[in-house]
């Protein structure tokens, strides 16, 4: 069924089609329409779930952890400071191996207060153990929301999907809303391998001494290592049933490219437009979209980028005192490629706090990269007016 819906409603529809059983959330701009829509769905009975309207994001994550530990399929959504406030419990969810799905509407961090998009909220949660998937369109948002439950429950890892504040959250796009019966076939009810159960009592999360703690973290890492392969299986199923496929990493017009842009989120769509123009002008320029940031798709990116002379990374984020975060992680991933195929990586920081990344801005990035004679390690800020 085709609907014209905003990204926030695509999230809500995804959660509804996944038949979530327990939701807990706290409102924050620009995520609020997610919780409003889910509240409506719970109130009118179209989504037979319990919605716990808590007093904070910290409690929202705690509540879905409790429900997930009891075997329920759970969902929450947040943004910006709300996500940061959850931080302790993000670790708890991942360490406890709870397959919670969360949507984060990417929004900058204060001060000063700024409600517009950048990725510093979710990227500052990168070491919490959550899978991170960045979406480009509202279609990808609804599809990824449903797929996220399958991925999370297959490996008992929590999954966070990201959509850019306002560019997706509040922008209406045509979306093919999947059929409920087909989604039910794709995603059966959750069967928790272990849960809080009075007929089979166990203690979860108890004190663990140094002789065992490390093994628990190793098992967590082993599960995350399987994510790329499991996600590809899930995407192949989705492709067969719904005719759409995204990939953890997607190469676009990358054949024989001299320069590849690396993008994530909605910037990708703008970059596709620029790539098309440049290709039409006969320039060997393409792009690589990184959807999955955690686990970091090292092998996929090495395959996608090896042999290209120059790579320009568009980071709508930065690690203060270091540089753009995708660029830095990419450098580490490609460091030990043989030097004859290792690209020079130019990291650009741009679009923070919702500043526009227009085709002109991306053209500037491309031209600077081609003409650059400076060290590729410099973090390059675009559009700053000191």
């Amino acid at each position, binding site marked *: 069924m085709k609907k014209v819906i905003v990204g926030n409603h695509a999230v809500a529809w995804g959660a509804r089609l996944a038949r979530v059983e327990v939701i807990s959330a706290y409102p924050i701009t620009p995520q609020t329409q997610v919780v409003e829509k889910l509240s409506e769905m719970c109130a009118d009975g179209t989504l037979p779930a319990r919605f716990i309207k808590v007093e904070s994001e910290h409690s929202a994550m705690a509540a879905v952890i409790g429900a997930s530990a009891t075997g329920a399929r759970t969902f929450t959504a947040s943004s910006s400071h709300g996500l940061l406030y959850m931080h302790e419990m993000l670790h708890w969810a991942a360490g406890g191996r709870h397959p919670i799905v969360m949507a984060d509407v990417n929004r900058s961090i204060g001060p000063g207060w700024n409600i517009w998009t950048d990725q510093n909220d979710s990227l500052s949660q990168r070491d919490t153990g959550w899978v991170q998937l960045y979406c480009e369109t509202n279609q990808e948002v609804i599809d990824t929301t449903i797929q996220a439950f399958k991925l999370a429950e297959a490996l008992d890892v929590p999954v966070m999907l990201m959509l850019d504040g306002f560019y997706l959250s509040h922008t209406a796009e045509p979306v093919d809303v999947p059929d409920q019966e087909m989604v039910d076939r794709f995603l059966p009810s959750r069967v928790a391998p272990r849960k809080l159960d009075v007929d089979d009592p166990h*203690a979860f999360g108890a*004190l663990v001494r140094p002789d065992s703690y490390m093994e628990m973290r190793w098992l967590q890492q082993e599960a995350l290592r399987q994510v790329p392969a499991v996600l590809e299986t899930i995407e192949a199923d989705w492709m067969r049933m719904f005719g759409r496929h995204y990939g953890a990493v997607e190469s676009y017009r990358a054949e024989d490219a001299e320069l590849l842009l690396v993008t994530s989120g909605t910037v990708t769509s703008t970059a596709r437009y620029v790539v098309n123009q440049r290709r039409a002008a006969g320039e060997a320029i393409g792009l690589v979209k990184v959807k999955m940031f955690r686990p970091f798709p090292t092998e996929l990116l090495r395959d996608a980028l090896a042999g290209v002379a120059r790579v320009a990374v568009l980071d709508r984020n930065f690690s203060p005192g270091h540089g753009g975060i995708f660029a830095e992680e990419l450098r580490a991933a490609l460091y030990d490629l043989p030097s004859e195929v290792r690209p020079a990586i130019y990291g650009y920081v741009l679009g923070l706090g919702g500043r526009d990344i227009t085709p002109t801005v991306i053209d500037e990035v491309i031209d600077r990269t081609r003409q650059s004679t400076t060290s590729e390690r410099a973090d390059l800020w675009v559009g700053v007016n000191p």
Partner: protein
Amino acid sequence: MSQVRIDQAIPQGEFMTSGHLACPGCAAPLAMRLVLKALGPKTIIVMPASCFTIIAGPWPQSSLQVPVYHTAFATGPAVASGVRAALDMRGETDTTVLVWVGDGGTFDIGLQSLSGAAERNENIMYCCYDNEAYMNTGIQRSSATPWGAWTTTTPAQHPEATNKKDILGILAAHRIPYAATATPAYPVDLVEKATRAKGMQGTRFLHILSPCPPGWKCGDDEGLELARMAVQNRVFPMLEVEDGERWRFTMDHAGDPVEPYLRRQGRFRHLNAEQVAHIQAEVNARWASLQRRVRASADEVSVVLPGMALA
């Protein structure tokens, strides 16, 4: 008080085993054992960080024979809300969800999530075992630490300078169905209150005074006796509050002087006569205030509830 045969008044079921890791003389395991006797095997415990994180036993062992979810400090009531919701979704409405946590997790860091759950009137039971400081981290003051007490962060030269937070009043102000005080020093009373709470729906709160010999600086064998003294001298009165409105005392309180209670604890050893008199005056004032609340609610319901002491 009439004689009660404890073996008849307290259920025989055991859901806490020996081999736990409490310090000698700790009252918290006894409180847990008694509450679980009242609640029975269909209980799920949510346990934020507290001494009991250690007491319950390290992975892969557990001294508790019911499911336990260990969780972060501030999150007991929120996690319990999620457990409750998931149980309700699968129709398991007769399982009790019990939050078990100390005074720091209740009076301080967990107060926001407790208030949230109480305001929503989540169908959970909450037990705060109160040993009046952060004992697990080495006796630092909490907002449950009484005025004048020594702790490692309120040294004897500058002992605790504020009164203990009125947590029962705070919970009662949420108008939850049931809030009460108790102590394992009066085991039958504790079991009766836990049993009454189990039979109710909504948020039920038990504030349990739980002496800590290392923190109170008393002998391993003195804790329960001190708790009985705290009840009888009205430092820790025994109360029930229903719907935030109906306050009642649940036993007679002799009104003994507080000084003998203070003098038996090293944490109060530095207090001079004037400071002891100050504590006595505060206890008297709070008692008078509680009497007014009890009388007012008795007037409202127009009945004299059993056990009420309106001296």
